C-alpha cells in the first residue's frame, strides 16, 4: 500500500510549473536579443566616440584598435553609430510590432466573439489590404505624408496588423466554441470580459510566437525603407540608413557597409532561432 502511494510522487516533483527546457541555440539567441535591447537603452553611455563627430580624417577607414569597426564615409566611428542605430531599429520596430499586435489581436478576438457580418466585413477588408505588397504600401504612404518616426511606426503597424488579425482570429474562433466560453456568455459577461479573461489566455502562446516573427518582418521592412532613403532621416540613422550612407564603400568592401548589415542579420536570425527553439509547451499551448 505504501509502495503504490509513494510511486507517483517523484514524477510529480519532476514536472514543476516552470520546468521549461531551453536548447542551447535558443539560449544563445535569447542572449543576443537581450544584448541588443540593452545596447539600445544604454547606447550613449557605451559608445566610444560621440556619434556625430568626425574623429578620423580617413574616410571608409579600416578596422583599427581605436575604431574597431572602421569609420564611415565622413570619418565617423562606425561602432558608435551602430550602437546608436540599435535605438532606432529596435525601438521603432518594437513600438510598431506592439501597436500592430495590439490592434490585430483585439480586432481578431472581437471578430471571433461577435461573428456575423462584423467578422465577414472586417476579415474581407483586412485580407484585401494584404494584397498590396508591403513595400509598395509603405512607399505610397511615405510618399503621401512624408517620413518621420511616428509616421514610420504607424505605417509599419498598419501594414502588419492584418497578419496579426488573421492569426488571432483563427485561434480565437477555436477557443470560442469551448464550453467555458459558452458558460461565460450564458452568465451574461460582456465582450471585454470575454476576450480578456476567456479567449486571450487560450491563445497567448502561439500569438507570442507570431509576435516574434512579425518583429522580424518589421525590422526587415524598416531597414529596407531606410536603405531606400524613406525611413529614418538624417542626422539620425538606423542600421538600414547606415548601409545606405556607406554604400559608396561597397566597391572596396569597406567595413562600414558590412557591419550594419551584420547587426541586422544577428538580430533577425536570433529572433527566428529563438522562436524555433521555444519549448513546445509555450508555442502550442492552445492547439487542440
Amino acid at each position, binding site marked *: 500500500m505504501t509502495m503504490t502511494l509513494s510511486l507517483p510522487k517523484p514524477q510529480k516533483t519532476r514536472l514543476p510549473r516552470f520546468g521549461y527546457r531551453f536548447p542551447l541555440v535558443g539560449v544563445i539567441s535569447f542572449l543576443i536579443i537581450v544584448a541588443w535591447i540593452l545596447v539600445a537603452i544604454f547606447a550613449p553611455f557605451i559608445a566610444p566616440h560621440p556619434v556625430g563627430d568626425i574623429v578620423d580624417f580617413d574616410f571608409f577607414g579600416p578596422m583599427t584598435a581605436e575604431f574597431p569597426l572602421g569609420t564611415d564615409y565622413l570619418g565617423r566611428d562606425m561602432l558608435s553609430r551602430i550602437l546608436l542605430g540599435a535605438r532606432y531599429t529596435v525601438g521603432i520596430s518594437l513600438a510598431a510590432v506592439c501597436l500592430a499586435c495590439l490592434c490585430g489581436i483585439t480586432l481578431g478576438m472581437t471578430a471571433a466573439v461577435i461573428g456575423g457580418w462584423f467578422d465577414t466585413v472586417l476579415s474581407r477588408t483586412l485580407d484585401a489590404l494584404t*494584397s*498590396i505588397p508591403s513595400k*509598395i*504600401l509603405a512607399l*505610397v504612404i511615405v510618399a503621401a505624408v512624408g517620413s518621420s518616426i511616428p509616421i514610420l511606426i504607424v505605417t509599419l503597424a498598419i501594414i502588419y496588423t492584418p497578419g496579426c488579425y488573421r492569426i488571432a482570429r483563427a485561434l480565437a474562433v477555436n477557443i470560442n466554441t469551448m464550453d467555458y466560453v459558452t458558460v461565460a456568455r450564458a452568465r451574461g459577461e460582456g465582450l471585454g470580459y470575454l476576450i480578456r479573461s476567456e479567449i486571450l489566455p487560450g491563445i497567448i502562446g502561439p500569438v507570442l510566437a507570431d509576435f516574434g516573427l512579425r518583429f522580424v518582418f518589421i525590422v526587415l521592412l524598416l531597414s*529596407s525603407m531606410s536603405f531606400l532613403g524613406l525611413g529614418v532621416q538624417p542626422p539620425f540613422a538606423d542600421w538600414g540608413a547606415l548601409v545606405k550612407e556607406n554604400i559608396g564603400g561597397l566597391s572596396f568592401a569597406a567595413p562600414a557597409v558590412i557591419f550594419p*548589415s551584420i547587426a541586422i542579420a544577428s538580430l533577425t*536570425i536570433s529572433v527566428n532561432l529563438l522562436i524555433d527553439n521555444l519549448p513546445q509547451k509555450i508555442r502550442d499551448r492552445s492547439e487542440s
Partner: protein
Amino acid sequence: MNSLILRLAAKRLVIAFLTLLFVAFTIFFATEMLPGDVAEVLLGQAATPEAVAGLRTAMNLDQPAFLRFIYWLGELFTGDFGVSYVNKLPIADLIGGRLANSLKLAGVTAVISVPIALALGITAAIKRGTLYDRIVSIFTISVISVPEFMVATIAVIVFAVYLGWLPALSMANEVTSIGGLLKAFAMPVITLSFVVSAQMIRMSRAAVLETLNTPYVEMALLKGASRRRMVLRHALPNALGPIVNAVALSLSYLLGGVIIVETIFNYPGIAKLMLDAVSTRDLPLIQSCAMIFCLAYLLLITIADLVAIISNPRLQ
C-alpha cells in the same frame, strides 16, 4: 463535379477583381492624404490665386475626392494613366520602356531560379533529416531572415570585389555588346535569384513533405516500393499542384526584391521610376506604378489559388 471547380474558380476571380478595386481605392486615398494643395505645389512661384483656381478646375480638384476617384479609375481602365506632375510627359510613355526592362529582369530571374530552386527543394524533402537537407534549410532561413540589400551587398563583395568577375554596379543604358548585356544583368539577377529561390525552396520542400506524409505514400512504402519510386511515382504527381502554387507565391517576392535591386544596381526599371517619383512627390506616377505592382502581385496570388483549386483531387 467540374462545374464545382468552375464555380470556385469564378468566385476566386470575382474576389480578385473586388480586391483590385479595393486596392485602387486604398492607393488613391493614401496619396490624397498629401497635406497642402496640389495646384499650389505645382505652380510653385507662379501660384497667383487666379492661376491656382484655374488649375484646380482644370485638374478636377474642386470636385469631391470620391468623384475624382471614379474618373481616375475610368481613365485607368481605358489605358490613360494621366500626365506626370514633374516633367509633364504622359505617364504611359514614361512607364512603357521601364516596365519592359523590369519584366526582362523578372523573366530572366524566374527562368534561372525556378529549376534550381525546385530541384533543391524537392531533393531536400526526399532526403529529409540528412546533412544535405540541413545545409539547404540553413541557407534558406539565413536568406529569408536578412534584408534583400544585404544579399545584394554580399553578392557584390563576393563576385565583384573578391572574385572580380563582374562590375560592382550595372549600367544597363550603356549596353553595347552581348557581353555587356550579360554583365549588366548578372548582379541584379544573381541577387534576385537568391531571394526568390530561398522562398521557393522552403515552400516546395514543405509541399513535397506534406505529400510524403499521406497514407497512400506510406502504403507504397509498405508495399516495398523503393524510395525513388515512392517519391517519383506516388508523391510527386500529387504534389504538383502545391508545387506550382509555391512557385507562383514565391515569384511574388520578386516584386519586393526588385525595388531594392533596381535601386542598389541603378537598373532603369519601373521600381526605380517609382522611387524617383516618391522623391519628387509625383503623385500620378506613384499611383500608376503602385497599381502595376499590385496588379502583378494579385495576378500571381490568384494564379496560385486557381492552381490550388484546379489541382485539388477532392474536387474532381
